């Protein structure tokens, strides 16, 4: 297969690394080579975070030049991935805003998403949905991954991703993660 490049963006504390580990584990279980890159420390603490993941036959560099898929856990953060995208890049964006002093309004961000993200894009209220249905927003990344998997936006088998979730997620959080993943099957 052709190498598949994913960028996950969001803010520190949104469960980005768990999501990254689940996708990496899925790729590995599916027999693919995989490499990821992430940042820790000062780059977290509620700041912008991006993680890169590449999977395919043989992967050298862990860094993405052009993404096939962007999973953004926050609205504004999707725009920070623009330099790694083109019209073929698919964007899966959590319709959730973590505002701060001096940022754009949510309307403004959505307008910019509309204007500058040229390819397929899906704004999904994953945080709202997960809070309402599961009582926890932090699984919204896994919910978005479910959306990507069930709609063929990422070359991973649903059953394998479930296996990966079971391997990566600690037991006490497993149920809610599996639910978040499965509930993406019929859309929301």
């Amino acid at each position: 297969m052709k190498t598949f490049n994913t960028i996950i963006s969001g803010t520190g504390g949104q469960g980005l690394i768990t999501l990254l580990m689940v996708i990496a584990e899925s790729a590995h279980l599916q027999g693919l080579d995989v490499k990821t890159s992430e940042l820790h420390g000062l780059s977290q603490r509620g700041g912008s975070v991006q993680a890169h993941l590449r999977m395919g036959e043989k992967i050298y560099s862990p860094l993405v030049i052009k993404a096939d898929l962007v999973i953004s856990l926050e609205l504004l953060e999707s725009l920070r991935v623009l330099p790694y995208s083109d019209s073929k890049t698919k964007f899966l964006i959590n319709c959730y805003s973590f505002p701060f002093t001096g940022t754009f309004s949510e309307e403004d961000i959505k307008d910019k998403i509309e204007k500058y993200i040229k390819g397929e894009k899906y704004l999904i209220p994953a945080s709202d949905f997960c809070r309402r249905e599961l009582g926890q927003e932090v699984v919204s990344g896994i919910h978005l991954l479910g959306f990507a998997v069930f709609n063929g936006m990422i070359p991973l088998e649903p059953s394998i991703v479930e296996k990966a979730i079971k391997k990566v997620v600690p037991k006490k959080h497993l149920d809610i993660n599996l639910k978040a993943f499965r509930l993406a099957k019929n859309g929301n």
Partner: protein
Amino acid sequence: MKKILLGNEAIVQGALESGVDFVSAYPGTPSSEIGVIFGEIAQKNGVYFEFSTNEKTAMEAAIGASFSGLKCLVAMKNFGLNVASDALIPFCYTGVKGPTVIIVADDPSCWSSGQSEQNTRAFTYTSYIPMLEPADAQEAKDFVKLGFEISEKFKIPVIIRTTTRVAHQRMPVEIGTVKRGNPKGKFIKNVKQFVTMPPRVLEMKDELLEKIEKIRTYAEKSVVNRIEGKGKIGIITSAVSYLYVKEALAELDLNLPILKLGFFNPLPNKKIKKFTKGLKAVLVVEELDGFLEKEVRVLDPKIKVFGKDLIPVSRELGVEKVAMAIAKVTGKRYKMRKGVSLDLPRRYPRLCEGCPYWFVFSAVKELAPKDTVFGGGIGCYMLAGFPPHEIQDYLFCMGSSIGIGHGIKKSTDQKLISFIGDSSFFHSGISGLINAVYNKSNALIIIMDNRITAMTGHQPNPGMGETGMGEEAVAIEIEDIVKACGVKNVRTVDPKNINELKTTIKEFLNKKEVSVIISKRMCALLARRLKR
């Protein structure tokens, strides 16, 4: 069996497979996970682990353990080696008894580092220490094992130098068998090896130089220095740059010979000369300074060498930067991708909700006279420099907020407030405090005691009454230390008692001697975690 591991997890795995006995560390991104993991698993693997007070004490602990025959691992970030180097350099002279590997993590592009974009490779020139540079997580594991082999065979400590993109890279890594450690050794006296008194120290230097030449011969044969492919224009590369070279060649549809070096020191000079012989030109692809390039120029003065003329000295590399350089050397066309880049508002990292530092920063901002100088340091409190606080007028290295503050106080009539965290205070703040008292400063020092080393992900420190392995220990009282340093004006305040905090700040700002406020309240994240 392969398992997906983070580079730092792979380092731990490599040490366990080597049968490590003794591990010491001081946390620092991007190396911190190594200590955290050992804290959890050391005891069940027969390993002794400690978070030391700083990198020098970590290094010294390992030196003592090595002299007692144990197999040792020390882990730190790049700046840590500056602190530890006073002990490291004589350790290269004496050599090891038990094999010792030192992990040093650089951070090109300063993703998680203030201070400087330091290149740890430079230390090989002053210490002669052998240094290996893994490109990925698998090599990180393999090179730790190789490092222990070299250390054992040649009786010398070995540095494994990682960078952020290796330490925080995940990939499937081949898992081998773990060998149980045994943290009980015996110190067998040997003044000839362990005492660096002159003139013996000069004989030691001669022996060290001999060892390095023997290791060079070993490096010539080592598979980690390998040549791939054939052609007239070659590439010499190492560490993570190798990965970018492989991707760049594929992008450009080129097949050029590559010399991939696992050793940075000593270099396999013959292998390098063999590689460049018959080439028309060679491109040296390395991150940060052109150290390898300079070596290649000396080894083969006749060949055309490209390097830092095409590849920047600052900031980490990536496939595109490397592809551009290769394209220029080979006459290929390559265009860097120009994606849309919007001017987006910066999302600053910020103090967590409920963080006790909020109270301190707001009180200080309210009460300090206009001309007050604010000294920052390394830890969560460096967020003082970002909005909404913006009270950080200088930021250097661990412990320096007090030391530099003293110099400013001696040179000006301005008020000065230095911030320092509890872990930084234990790390290297105490000597600065003594200096300030002894030399009659009158800064106000606020020790931001949040009861843990928070920034790097919650590692225990000497103030907490708990060791790196979770054993009970004496909780060292910061106030006792401050008093013992001769500070007359000292008060421990819970910053949530905002009135007491403010009264104390006002009072202490007008003192004629050094004054210290210990703002003592647990990190909010930790408090929430303990509640659960």
